[in-house]
């Protein structure tokens, strides 16, 4: 391939070929004036927006005004980006305690859409987006899908569920914003997905990586030829994407796949996205999110490029102006230039957390929630063991719990009814339907010290 030979990144295999040849000029950038701006410019934008955001939160959200007054800090104290450290942290408990609308900075009449994710106890975390928030969210998505070589005119098929989960609508709006045709197929019915790819000439698939793998396998079993398929790009999310799984999907489906990072509490998907130059990292939309990486124990910043907990402050978000949200995701952030041409900082893909949260079918699940539910069921002990595994491309949550001797009945019907009742109670709290297994009294290992409750068997 000669230096300046044209590379068509909209042809199958084109984006990966361009990246392999170092021809990042052939790949699209949605908003180069910020994505490829000098660091000083990015930081100037961040500071102006941070000052605006803090003043807005102080003015409109009683929780933040009280918290900041208590700490003796006001909007005028934000003179540099480092001054963000004077502000209070926000964690999931704050969103839960102010449920449903306590942190909203605008009346519901200005909210266009509500989404939620599960909370650490029974109540979900609910977030609201104004028109401007929706525009900002769509733009973040448009940027990251272009990193994978998606262009206006692509036909994108959604294999996430829609509903309250932010993944489905987030990607939907962002792809439309870029100028793609959306096929809102939703999750499930794998054979129909493959039929639609063929019938409608789908070029982009949005899915969890494990479901994409399932679609790949079902297609192979049906005799579908992925090499001649119109499908060109896989956009993954909803769960961590193991590099090995991604490489396998790229090879077998003959597509290019990227994944992105985000969380409902600060927006949803699109906080950062993978480019084709640094495939273990993701560019943060820094003009919309101020990042910090802190020691999870002390809350103090770690050194440049060191691993710590990611703390995010969305900039100029109107519906809910969250300050310094503690993600509990462990990562390191790098600010050097990237071969793709972008200057936006890159975070390492999140592989672990500072707490024990699990992401199951895109939903956040805390082992403590499971313990709380089991404590309220008198037929079982609060001892439990969680197994998470992949079954037919979907996460499966198995909760093992111990039967109390006195709750035993010589009837399969009664025992099965108990099992179903426990599963229903867990589902009501977790928003994920588990499989419940009853275990003999004493059958769950009593771990010494920090109990090992979770066996996550999914590919890492």
């Amino acid at each position: 391939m000669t230096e300046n030979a044209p590379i068509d990144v909209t042809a199958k295999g084109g984006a990966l070929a361009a990246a392999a040849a170092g021809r990042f000029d052939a790949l699209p950038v949605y908003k180069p004036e910020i994505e490829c701006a000098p660091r000083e410019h990015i930081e100037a934008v961040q500071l102006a927006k941070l000052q605006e955001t803090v003043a807005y939160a102080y003015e409109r959200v009683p929780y933040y005004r009280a918290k900041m007054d208590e700490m003796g800090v006001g909007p005028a104290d934000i003179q540099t980006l480092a001054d963000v450290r004077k502000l209070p942290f926000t964690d999931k408990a704050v969103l839960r305690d102010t449920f449903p609308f306590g942190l909203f900075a605008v009346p519901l009449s200005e909210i266009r859409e509500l989404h939620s994710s599960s909370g650490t106890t029974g109540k979900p975390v609910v977030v609201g987006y104004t028109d401007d928030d929706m525009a900002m969210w769509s733009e973040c998505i448009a940027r990251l899908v272009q990193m994978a070589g998606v262009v206006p005119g692509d036909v994108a098929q959604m294999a996430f569920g829609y509903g309250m989960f932010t993944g489905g609508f987030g990607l939907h709006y962002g792809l439309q914003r870029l100028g793609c045709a959306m096929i809102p197929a939703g999750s499930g019915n794998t054979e129909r997905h493959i039929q639609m790819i063929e019938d409608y000439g789908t070029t982009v698939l949005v899915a969890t990586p494990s479901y994409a793998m399932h679609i790949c396998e079902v297609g192979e079993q049906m005799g579908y030829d992925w090499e001649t398929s119109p499908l060109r790009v896989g956009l993954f999310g909803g769960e961590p994407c193991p590099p090995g799984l991604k490489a396998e999907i790229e090879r077998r489906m003959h597509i290019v796949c990227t994944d992105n990072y985000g969380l409902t509490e600060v927006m949803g998907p699109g906080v950062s996205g993978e480019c084709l130059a640094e495939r273990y990292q993701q560019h943060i939309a820094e003009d919309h999110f101020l990042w910090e990486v802190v020691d999870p124990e002390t809350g103090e910043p770690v050194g440049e490029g060191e691993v710590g907990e990611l703390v995010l402050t969305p900039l100029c978000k109107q519906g809910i102006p969250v300050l310094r949200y503690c993600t509990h995701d462990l990562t390191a952030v790098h600010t050097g230039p990237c071969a793709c041409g972008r200057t936006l900082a890159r975070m390492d893909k999140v592989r672990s957390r500072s707490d024990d949260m699990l992401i199951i079918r895109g939903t956040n699940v805390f082992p403590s929630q499971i313990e709380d539910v089991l404590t309220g069921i008198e037929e079982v002990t609060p001892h439990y063991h969680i197994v998470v595994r992949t079954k037919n491309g979907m996460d499966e949550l198995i909760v093992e719990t111990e039967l109390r001797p006195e709750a035993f009945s010589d009837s399969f019907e009664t025992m099965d009814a108990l099992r179903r009742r426990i599963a229903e109670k867990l589902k009501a709290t977790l928003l994920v339907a588990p499989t419940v297994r009853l275990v003999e009294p004493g059958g769950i290992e009593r771990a010494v010290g920090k109990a090992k409750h979770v066996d996550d068997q999914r590919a890492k």
Partner: protein
Amino acid sequence: MTVSQISVFANSRPGHMSRVLALFEEAGVSVRGFSAADTGEYGILRFVVDKPEEALAALQQAGCACTVTPVLCLRLDDVPGELSRVMGVLARVGINVVYSYSMISTYIVLSCTDAERARELLAEEPVEMISQADIARIVAERTGKEA
């Protein structure tokens, strides 16, 4: 007149049934009939024993989930139509038999996860294995005798 059946909750895993049997042995309890049914993950072991109180005490002592259920116990003559005759009595009045098993464990039936390996192992043991032909032959011989 009923007998006291001992039911035990057990996970469907190797060693769980033999643990219960070891407890019986220690307590000097003799199993006169049993059934083990599973749902794939857990099962209910059911026993008719000579000393139900001792059996229950031993199980409870060991922390097992167990219970006593009164069940009917019948002795049938080993002639064609006997099982059908007894079940018919209950069927005619609309009584459902939830489960049933035969007692005095001289002939037992096992369904194992690795049937071939189990067969090889037991073939090495001083225990007689019965084939389908044996069953047919036993019945045929007796029918011949009666004829």
